[in-house]
């Protein structure tokens, strides 16, 4: 039983990290209907910048995290400006291809020797891992940190989106660009900001990931990015609570499969569940089915 609880906690940790990445996917999809394939690589850059912050430059951990978030927010805005904005009103697939290009660019550019280098780096733990038993549940301080930080960030995001003018602008742009413009919303800035927030969340996810699974390299973003994106689709893409629900499900499925069935079948079962869910609910768990007008 303790083993099961331990795995569930591990799954929760993984799920919350997926949630941080999935939020960026889902927010960007909400405002520009683009699957931002480069998002997983922004996550990777976040992990590296965080690692450099606390392990190489000797910054305190919170400062290293903020630093990574700011740099990735800027990176996200630059990517949007250069690679997606010229294609905003082109066929949707064009922006998707551009996103693939950006993804490859970030991966290969980061692999260059004078950037991050192609090799695995072992991340030293910025804090000592302490094992606790809370109500008989084995948990580490790092897991507690991850879960608390993510919950606080989710709360902040919820406040931002539903309680501020910026959030209102984002929700408006998500409905209709032209109508938003007519209402006096600066659509370009709002989209930029959405990318910035999404990328900052990915960076936070990256740093936490590097602390929890202490090994990083330039292609580390591909799989978590794909899983997080799948989580966003599972929950209903464009819907923020959906991304969190989807991510928690992905985290549990993956960890429990790896622990009790087979670690090699982990990905297969996660994606099989995705396909099954989509067959039953074609727009995800919380997705609303759209009536098509003729």
């Amino acid at each position, binding site marked *: 039983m303790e083993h099961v609880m331990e795995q569930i906690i591990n799954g929760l940790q993984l799920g919350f990290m997926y949630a941080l990445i999935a939020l960026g996917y889902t927010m960007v999809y909400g405002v520009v209907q683009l699957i931002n394939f480069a998002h997983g690589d922004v996550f990777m850059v976040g992990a590296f910048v965080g690692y450099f912050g606390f392990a190489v430059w000797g910054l305190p951990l919170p400062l290293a995290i903020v630093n990574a978030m700011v740099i990735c927010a800027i990176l996200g805005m630059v990517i949007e400006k250069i690679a997606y904005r010229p*294609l905003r009103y082109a066929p949707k697939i064009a922006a998707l*291809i*551009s996103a693939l290009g950006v993804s490859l660019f970030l991966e*290969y550019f980061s692999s260059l020797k004078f950037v991050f280098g192609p090799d695995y780096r072992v991340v030293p733990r910025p804090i000592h891992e302490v094992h606790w038993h809370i109500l008989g549940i084995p948990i580490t301080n790092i897991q507690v940190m991850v879960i608390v930080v993510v919950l606080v960030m989710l709360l902040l995001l919820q406040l931002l989106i539903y309680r501020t003018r910026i959030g209102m602008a984002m929700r408006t742009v998500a409905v209709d660009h032209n109508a938003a413009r007519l209402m006096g919303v600066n659509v370009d800035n709002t989209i930029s900001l959405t990318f910035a927030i999404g990328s900052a969340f990915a960076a936070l996810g990256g740093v936490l990931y590097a602390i929890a699974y202490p090994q990083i390299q330039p292609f580390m973003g591909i799989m978590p990015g*794909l899983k997080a994106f799948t989580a966003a689709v599972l929950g209903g893409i464009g819907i923020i609570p959906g991304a969190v629900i989807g991510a928690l499900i992905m985290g549990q499925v993956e960890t429990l499969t790896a622990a009790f069935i087979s670690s*090699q079948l982990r990905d297969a079962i996660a994606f099989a569940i995705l396909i099954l869910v989509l067959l039953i609910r074609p727009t995800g768990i919380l997705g609303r089915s759209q009536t098509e007008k003729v």
Partner: protein
Amino acid sequence: MKISRQTIMLLILAAAFFALVKGLQFAGVLNAYWQLVLDQALVTVIGALGLSLIYGFTGQFSLGHAAFYGLGAYTAGAIDIVYGNGNIIFFFVSILAGAALAGLVALLIGLPILRLRSDYLGIATLGFGIIVKVGMDNANKLIPVLGGATGMSGTPQTAHFDLIFILVLIIILLVRNFVFSTYGRACTSIREDEIAADIMGIDTTRFKVLAFVLGCSLAGLAGGIYAHRYPFLHPASFDFLKSFDFLLIVVLGGLGSMTGTIVTAIGWGFLMEVLRAVLGENFIDWRGVIYALILIVAIILRPQGLFSGKELGLLLPRPLQTGQGKERSHAGTGS
């Protein structure tokens, strides 16, 4: 049977291309290495035409094309390893078996998931691709000859340029005839507007599944040929990154254009190798960076692709009549 002037012109062009390659071979310009690059580019043409049918002409977003390519490759390779002995007959038997298996799997998976729309369909096919990749990684536990995560080698290398070239030519003609048949027209109408097509009396499910099965069989066929031209198969060669390769060939070529798919498939096949040759030892690390930049710049400059909805006159079954090119100029608006 009356053969149209377009077909004859196409065959003449193909013969000229063939003669050019033979000439280059004879002059020693085309060494074994570049011959392999060319052959693989031609194999990619077949696979990419498959995705072109599914996505370019029928508008069904698939991100799992490489899975079918891989299924074909492994099936054909395994059959030829176990039963074949380098005999050319087994080449044909095994690649047809590969295509058939890919088509059968496409039918089974396509019937349920083709109900999904655009990005959701893309992600379901992507997920299917990942499941197939996991299957390939563990396939040796059921069938040892498949090699699993360590890869499979030993397929007789019976394919060569002449054979591949003729197969590509046949496939191009078949795809052309399909696209311009009533079936192809039905598929195109689904891409343009599924509801309108439905109202016009087109059984949309049937045609979506048909295009998907045909396209995936072509991927399987391409995979089978690949197995006979490249001695080492590895699951990593058939993961979702390979699916993205097919996707970007079809999109950069221009949706709804066979010409675009063929030209881009060959160009894309050579790009990486040309970059390798141009950059040399010292700058080889930059290859991926430059490749990515070319991709971004190309799509920003031509968001609709090189030949969106247009065809080289030779690939039309009949001479172009006035207005015939216009009606398909909206290709690429779907996603």
